[in-house]
C-alpha cells in the first residue's frame, strides 16, 4: 500500500506521457502531432516537480521561521524547459503553416503520396 | 469573532463552489449554444466572485486582501466581456439561436 501511495504520481505521469506518445505516432494530422509532443513535455515537467517536493515543506522562498523548503533545483531546470517547449512549439507550428501552403494539406499520408508522385 | 469570520468565509466558499457546479450542469444540460453561454457567464462570474470574497475574509486586513480585491475587479470586467466576444463571434459566424417555432 505504501508502494502505491509513494509512486502513484509517477505512474499517472507515465500514463500521460504514453498518451502524448501515442498521439505523436498514431495520428496523421501534423497539428495533432505537435499537440501530442506538448502533452509529453508537460507530463515530464510534472515528473520532475513531483520529485522535488518534500513532505511538510513549502515554496523555496526564504522566510523567517520556516526550516523545510522544497528543492529549488528541479524548479530552475523546468523553468528553462517550459520556455524551450514554447520555442519548439512555435517553430513547429510555423513549419506546419508553411507545409500547408506548399502541399495544400497537413495530413501526413497525403503529403507522403504527393512526395512520391514527384 | 474569529468563529464568525470563519463561518462567513466557509459560507462564501461553499456558495461559490455550488454556483460553479450549477454553471457546469447548465453547460451540459442546456440545448443551444446561446443558452449555454448564458449559464456560463452568470454562474462563473458569481461563483468566482464568491470564492474570492471568502478568501478575502480569511485574509483579514493585509496586502493579500488588496491583491485579491484587484483580482476580483479584474474578473468582474473580463468574465462578461469574454462571453460577449464569444456571442458576437457566434453571431458573425451565422450560428442561429434555437427558437421555439410553435405558436402556442
Amino acid at each position, binding site marked *: 500500500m505504501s508502494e502505491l501511495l509513494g*509512486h502513484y504520481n509517477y505512474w499517472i505521469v507515465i500514463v500521460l506521457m504514453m498518451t502524448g506518445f501515442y498521439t505523436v505516432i498514431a495520428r496523421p494530422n501534423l497539428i495533432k502531432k505537435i499537440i501530442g509532443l506538448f502533452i509529453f513535455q508537460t507530463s515530464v515537467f510534472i515528473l520532475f516537480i513531483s520529485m522535488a517536493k518534500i513532505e511538510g515543506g513549502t515554496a523555496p522562498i526564504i522566510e523567517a521561521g520556516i526550516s523545510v523548503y522544497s528543492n529549488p533545483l528541479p524548479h530552475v531546470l523546468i523553468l528553462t524547459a517550459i520556455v524551450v517547449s514554447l520555442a519548439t512549439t512555435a517553430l513547429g507550428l*510555423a513549419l506546419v503553416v508553411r507545409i500547408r501552403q506548399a502541399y495544400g494539406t497537413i495530413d501526413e499520408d497525403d503529403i507522403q503520396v504527393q512526395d512520391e508522385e514527384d | 469573532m474569529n468563529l464568525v469570520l470563519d463561518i462567513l468565509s466557509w459560507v462564501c466558499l461553499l456558495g461559490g463552489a455550488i454556483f460553479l457546479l450549477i454553471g457546469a450542469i447548465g453547460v451540459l444540460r442546456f440545448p443551444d449554444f446561446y443558452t449555454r453561454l448564458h449559464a456560463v457567464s452568470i454562474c462563473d462570474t458569481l461563483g468566482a466572485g464568491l470564492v474570492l470574497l471568502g478568501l478575502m475574509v480569511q485574509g483579514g486586513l493585509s496586502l493579500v486582501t488588496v491583491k485579491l480585491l484587484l483580482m476580483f475587479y479584474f474578473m468582474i470586467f473580463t468574465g462578461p466581456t469574454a462571453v460577449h466576444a464569444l456571442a458576437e463571434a457566434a453571431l458573425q459566424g451565422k450560428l442561429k439561436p434555437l427558437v421555439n417555432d410553435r405558436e402556442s
Partner: protein
Amino acid sequence: MEYLIDIVLLGLLMITGFAIVRMRSLLAVAMLTSIYSLLSASLFVVLDAVDVALTEAAIGAGISTILLLAAVALTTDEEQAPRHTPLLPLIVVITTGAALIYGTVDMPHYGDPASPVHRHVAATYLHDTPGEIGVPNVVTSVLASYRGYDTLGEVTVIFTAGAGVLALLGYRTRRRNSRGPGNRKLVVLRVIAKLFFPLILLFALYIQFHGDYGPGGGFQAGVIFATGFILYALAFGLGNAQRVIPHRMLHIMMAVGVLIYASVGIESMLLGGKFLEYRVLAEDPVTGQHLGIMLIELGVGITVAAVMLIIYYGFVSQQRSGDM
C-alpha cells in the same frame, strides 16, 4: 488532504489527455490543450513550485493557445479519420509504458525528505543564498546567479526561435485599419481592451522587478507584456497594433535583450572577475549580485516580449484579411 487535491488534478489531467487524443475538431483540441496547461499549473502550485506554476500558466495556457488557434485558423479545422489500424502504435505504447513503470519501482517515494536529489548541490543553494546573494527567492538566485550560463543559453534559444519564425513566415506591414461599419460590434471589446491594456503592462513590470521577493522574473514578465499587446491587436486590428509597436523596433528589442545579458558577463570580466561573476560589479559583493540579477532579468524580459510579438505578427500576417 493535500493528496486528495493531487489525485483529483491528476485524474482530470488524464481525462483531458484522453479527450485530446480522441477528438477530431482541431479548435476543440486547442482549447483542451489550454485546459491541460492550466490544470498542470494548478498541480504545480499544489506541489510547492510557484515560479514554475506562474510560467506554465502564462506560457502554456496563454501564448501557446493563441499560437495554436492561429495555426488552426490558417490550416484545416478538422482532422481526417486515421486510415491505418492503431494496433502497432498501441503495442509500442503499452510496451514502453510497462517498461517505464517497471523502472519507477526503484524511485524514491513521493515527498521523501531523504531522497538523493535533496542532497549535494540543492542544500548548499538553500544555505548560501541569504548570505551570498541576499535574495529571498531561491529559484531566482539559482536561475540568475548560480546557473547564469544556462539562462544565457535559454535566452539564445528564444532568440533563435524568433529568428526562425521570422525566416519562415516573414511579416507584412499593414496600413491602419479603417473604421468600417462592422466595428460597431467590437465596441465592448475595444473599451475593455483600452481599460486593461495599461494595467496588464503595469502588472508585467511588477512581476519583472518583484521576481527577487516572490514568484516572478524575466520570462513570465516578458510573456505578460506581450499578451497585453496581443490583446490590443485582437481588439483593434493588426494595422493599428503595428503603429503602436512597429516591426523595426521589435527586431532591435529582440537583439538588445541578449546583448544586455552578454554585456553583463563581459563587463564582469573587464572588472577583473570571471564571465558572469556579478560580485565584482559593485564594491559590496551582495549589491553586485543584486545589480547583476536585475540587469540580466531585464535583458531576458525584453527579448522574450519581443520574440512573442514577432511570432504573433508572423502568424497573423499570413492571414489574407489581416484582422484575426
